[in-house]
C-alpha cells in the first residue's frame, strides 16, 4: 500500500497565502494527525489533495502516482477518500443508498451494459446493495437502512458518512473533524473503527480539534498554524512544543 506524500505544498488566494510550504506524509496502516487552530488551513490542505483546489506550488503523490493536478473523481479512483467537516450526505437518498454510492469506484459493468440492461449490470445492483447491507451491519446501522439520510441524529449521520467513505475501499482516508460534536463514548467507538481500518492497511489522516482524541490514536502528528507547519512528531513531542502551546492558547480542549 502506498503512502500519501505532500511536498512543498502551498496555496495562494489572490493576496492571501492560505497554506505555505507544507510537507507531510500519510503512511499506510497508521493514523496520522493534523491539528491546528481554526482557520489554520487544514481543510484547505484536504481540498488540495482531493482535487477541489489547485496547488500554487508543490506536489501530492500517492506512492509513485502524481495526483497534484488530478480531478476530484480521478483522485477518488486513485484510492483517496474523504469525509467532510460539515456532513454532506445525499439528503433525498436513504442510508443504504448513501452507502451504495460509495461503491461507485468499484463498479464493474460497462456503460453499455448499464444503458441496455445486460445481465452484468442487472446482477450488479443487488450485489452492491448486499455489500452495502453488510457494511451497515458492521457499523450497527442496519436498522436505519431505509431511513431518509437527512432525518437521522447527528451521530448516526457521521456514521453514514464513515460507511460511505469505507465503501470506496480507499488506500488513504482523510477524515475532516469526524468526531466534532460527539461525546467521549461516541468518539471512542469511532476511534476503535479507525484503529480497525488502519490495521487493515489503510493510511488515515485525522484532522481534529479534540487533542486528547488525536493523542490517543495517532502515531505521528502535524501541527498547522496560519497555513504553515510549525511542528511535527509523536504526540508527546508535539504537545510539549512551545510553539504549539502558544498557537493553541485559549483554544485547547
Amino acid at each position: 500500500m502506498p503512502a500519501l506524500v505532500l511536498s512543498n505544498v502551498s496555496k495562494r488566494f489572490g493576496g492571501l497565502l492560505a497554506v505555505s510550504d507544507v510537507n507531510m506524509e500519510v503512511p499506510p496502516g497508521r493514523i496520522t494527525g493534523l491539528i491546528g487552530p481554526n482557520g489554520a488551513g487544514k481543510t484547505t490542505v484536504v481540498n488540495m489533495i482531493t482535487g477541489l483546489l489547485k496547488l500554487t506550488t508543490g506536489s501530492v503523490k500517492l506512492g509513485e502516482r502524481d495526483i497534484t493536478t488530478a480531478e476530484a473523481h480521478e483522485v477518488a479512483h486513485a484510492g483517496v477518500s474523504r469525509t467532510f467537516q460539515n456532513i454532506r450526505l445525499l439528503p433525498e437518498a436513504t442510508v443504504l443508498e448513501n452507502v451504495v454510492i460509495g461503491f461507485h469506484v468499484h463498479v464493474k459493468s460497462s456503460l453499455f451494459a448499464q444503458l441496455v440492461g445486460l445481465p452484468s449490470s442487472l446482477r450488479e445492483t443487488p450485489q452492491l446493495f448486499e455489500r452495502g447491507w453488510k457494511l451497515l451491519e458492521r457499523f450497527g446501522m442496519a436498522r436505519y437502512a431505509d431511513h431518509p439520510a437527512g432525518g437521522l441524529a447527528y451521530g448516526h449521520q457521521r456514521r453514514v458518512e464513515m460507511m460511505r467513505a469505507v465503501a470506496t475501499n480507499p488506500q488513504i482516508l482523510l477524515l475532516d473533524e469526524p468526531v466534532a460534536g460527539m461525546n467521549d463514548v461516541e468518539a471512542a467507538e469511532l476511534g476503535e473503527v479507525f484503529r480497525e481500518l488502519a490495521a487493515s492497511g489503510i493510511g488515515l489522516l485525522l484532522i481534529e480539534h479534540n487533542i486528547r482524541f488525536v493523542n490517543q490514536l495517532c502515531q505521528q502528528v502535524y501541527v498547522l498554524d496560519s497555513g504553515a507547519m510549525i511542528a511535527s512528531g509523536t504526540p508527546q513531542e508535539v504537545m510539549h512544543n512551545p510553539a504549539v502551546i502558544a498557537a493553541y492558547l485559549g483554544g485547547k480542549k
Partner: protein
Amino acid sequence: MIAQQLVNGLVTGSVYALFALGFTLIFGTFKILNLAHAGVFMSGAFIGYFAVLNGLPLWLALVLAMIGAGLVSYLVEVTAFATIRGSGQIEFGALISSIGANLCIMSVAQRLSDTKVLRFPFGTFPVEFYEFGPVRFSFLQIIILVMVMFLLVVMMLYLYKTTFGRQIRAVSGNERVASLLGVNPALVYFQTFFISGALAGVAGILIGLSFNSIHFYMGEPYLLKAFVVVVLGGLGSVHGAVVAGMLLGIFQNLAVAYLPTALTETIIYGLLFLVLLIKPSGLFGSEGVQVGVARR
C-alpha cells in the same frame, strides 16, 4: 439610411432597456429569474388600452398602466415567490413558479381580449413627424426616448441616492443582516417588484402604441430578448441592462435591414450563447458565476 436605422434602433433599444431593467433589478436583488415579467409588461398595455377605451386621456392611461403593472408585479411576488422563500430550491423553484404566474396572467388577458388583437382607437396618439437632417422621428419615438431617459435617471437617483434604494441594495446583499439592521424586507419586496412592474408597464403601453397592436402573447418575444440584454449587460447590473438594451436594439434594426429576420434572430441568440460561454458575467456584471466542481 443607416442613420435612420440607427435612430430606429435606439428607440427599440430603449424599450428593450426599460423591459430588461425591471427584469435585472429583480434578479440582482433576489437572484430570481422572473419570467412573469412578460405578463406584467403585457398587462401594462392592456390596462392602458382599457383606460383609453373608457375615455381617459392618454397621459392618465399611462400613469394607470404604470401603477397597475406595478401592482400586478407585486401580486406575482406574493403568489409565486413569497410562498417559496426560505426553501433551498429558490433558483429552480422560482423560475418554474414565475412561469406558472405568467400563464395565469396571459390566460386572464386572453379572456379579456377574447383572443383577439386589440388596437387603440383611431386618434389616440397624434401621428406627427419631425425631420432632423437625414433622419425622421415620429412624435411617438421622441416621447419614447424622452420617457425612457427620464425613467432611467429617476431609477438611478432612486437606487443610489435615496434611503429606499440603499435598503434594496442592502437586502440584495444579505437579507437577514439587513433586517437586523432595521430594514423592513416586506417593504423592500414591495418596492422592488412594484418598480420593476411599473417600468415594464410603461414599456408595454409604449410598445402597444408603437405597433398599435395589443395581444395576450405580446410579452414573450420581449422576454426572450431580455435574456440577451440581461446576460450581455451582466445579470443584476442596471447600467448593463441599459447599454446592452440599446446595443441590441441598434444591432437588430441594422441587421433586419440587410438580413432576413430569422437569420437575425439566429445571430442574436448565437451571441447570447457565446457570451454565456466566454464571459457569463456580461459587460458589467460582477456576479461570481459558478463553474461546478473543478480545481480552483
